[in-house]
């Protein structure tokens, strides 16, 4: 088999890469060792957020990506539950509120719509919210999507162009390179697929896939658990989270950190997060994490105390030491591109990542500067 592009990984990032490459007229083969959305894509909440990002390259990527998400939803007939619900960040302590307001003012200068909300005003946004919160900020640009559905629909749509083939249950054993170091294709257990471009969209396993081409990428798993309640009538309108979530996301601590993130879904269940810890690929359920998440959620929405939990799920965010994704051509291996390491923001950032990858391969103008996401930026750096 051969194609213009091989995408390794059939999660949301791989699906977006395939979508935009096909749109650019390129032929694509998507391979995944498992199923569509079988990794981190299927283990999150489907966040498309600007609210949790400080001004800088990741925020610019997020702002571009949310526009593209809205566009893709239009093209695909609203088939993946894209919900422009808005985010409400709340503070429980005076110091946190002050910090949140400063953070929001900086974001506003960078193009984010951020509306300060008084303690009383919180109830206009969320009638069932706790009465003892001090205030917050409303971010109307935050959205949510059903990420597994989105990955599947995007791949289905890409296949319908006739230019995209999806090969699940197909593990890449080696990324082949010629004498000059350029990639020439991949080897699977059953065949050789040749292509002048190979995209590493393997998420948390991006470091392992990079190794198949003998280049280093320091991507580590950062574990998280989410609780799922019984289905309820609509009780929570927005994505609601505690202001200390932003600090937790940006932290380098390997130990357990939890901060409340709560939202309803289209199907009526309420999703409760979030936790972060670096414990390798251990998926064992940890009751301490569950307890903390439940407790913090009840502090923000007291009615949740009487609601049943149905189940929990967990997964691994692809963590990079500088909390930025890895996007673009790898100068160490011509023809090899990376689209991974998005940590907890992969769903939101997937659309822009896919577009930039397609533009880099097609040789057209890039929608934004990708230098901050350069794959070789870790060279010589000490990796914790």
């Amino acid at each position, binding site marked *: 088999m051969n194609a213009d592009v091989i995408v390794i990984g059939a999660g949301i990032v791989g699906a977006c890469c395939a979508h935009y490459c096909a749109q650019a007229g390129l032929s694509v083969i998507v391979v995944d060792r498992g199923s569509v959305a079988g990794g981190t894509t299927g283990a999150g909440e489907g966040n498309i957020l600007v609210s949790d990002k400080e001004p800088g390259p990741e925020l610019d990527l997020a702002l571009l990506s949310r526009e593209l998400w809205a566009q893709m939803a239009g093209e695909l007939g609203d088939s993946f539950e894209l919900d422009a619900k808005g985010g409400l960040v709340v503070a429980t302590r005076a110091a946190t509120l002050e910090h949140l307001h400063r953070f929001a003012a900086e974001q506003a200068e960078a193009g984010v719509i951020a509306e300060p909300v008084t303690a009383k005003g919180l109830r206009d946004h969320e009638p069932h919210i706790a009465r003892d919160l001090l205030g917050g900020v409303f971010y109307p640009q935050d959205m949510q999507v059903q990420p597994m559905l989105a990955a599947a629909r995007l791949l289905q749509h890409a296949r319908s162009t006739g230019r995209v083939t999806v090969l699940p249950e197909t593990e890449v054993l080696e990324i082949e390179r010629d004498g000059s170091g350029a990639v020439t294709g991949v080897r699977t257990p059953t065949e050789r697929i040749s292509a002048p471009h190979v995209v590493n969209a393997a998420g948390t396993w991006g470091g392992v896939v990079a190794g198949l081409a003998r280049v280093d990428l320091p991507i580590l798993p950062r574990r998280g658990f989410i609780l799922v309640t019984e*289905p309820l*009538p609509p009780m929570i309108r927005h994505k609601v989270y505690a202001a200390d979530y932003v600090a937790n996301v940006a932290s380098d601590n390997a130990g357990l950190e939890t901060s409340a993130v709560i939202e309803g879904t289209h199907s009526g269940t309420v999703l409760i997060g979030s936790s972060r810890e670096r414990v390798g690929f251990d998926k064992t359920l940890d009751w301490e994490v569950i307890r903390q998440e439940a407790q913090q959620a009840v502090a923000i929405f007291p009615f949740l105390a009487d609601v049943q939990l149905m189940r929990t799920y967990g997964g691994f965010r692809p963590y990079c030491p500088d909390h930025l994704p890895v996007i673009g051509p790898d100068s160490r291996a011509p023809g090899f591109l990376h689209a991974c390491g998005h940590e907890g923001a992969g769903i939101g950032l997937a659309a822009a990542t896919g577009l930039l990858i397609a533009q880099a391969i097609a040789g057209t103008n890039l929608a934004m500067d990708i230098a901050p996401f350069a794959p070789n930026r870790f060279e010589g750096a000490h990796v914790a």
Partner: protein
Amino acid sequence: MSRETSFTFDGAPMAAVEGQTIAAALIENGVMSWRTTRFGDRPRGLFCGIGVCFDCLITVNGEPNVRACLSAVEPGDDVRTQAGDGHV
């Protein structure tokens, strides 16, 4: 010796054995479905039978989303068909 007890399902009297789950008692009384889905109004009853799938949800004494496969019948229980999420 197992002892007989009774409960009602949508107001109709039903016989059960003490200690029996609501799901088992309903099936023994010929009732195979006791919930309709949130979006398609499709019928649901017992699926996994071990408390995992949350398909057999039912309203018991006014409390929605009780798993019929795990809850034992209590004498005089007022068991009702659940529509959607059960919260009216």
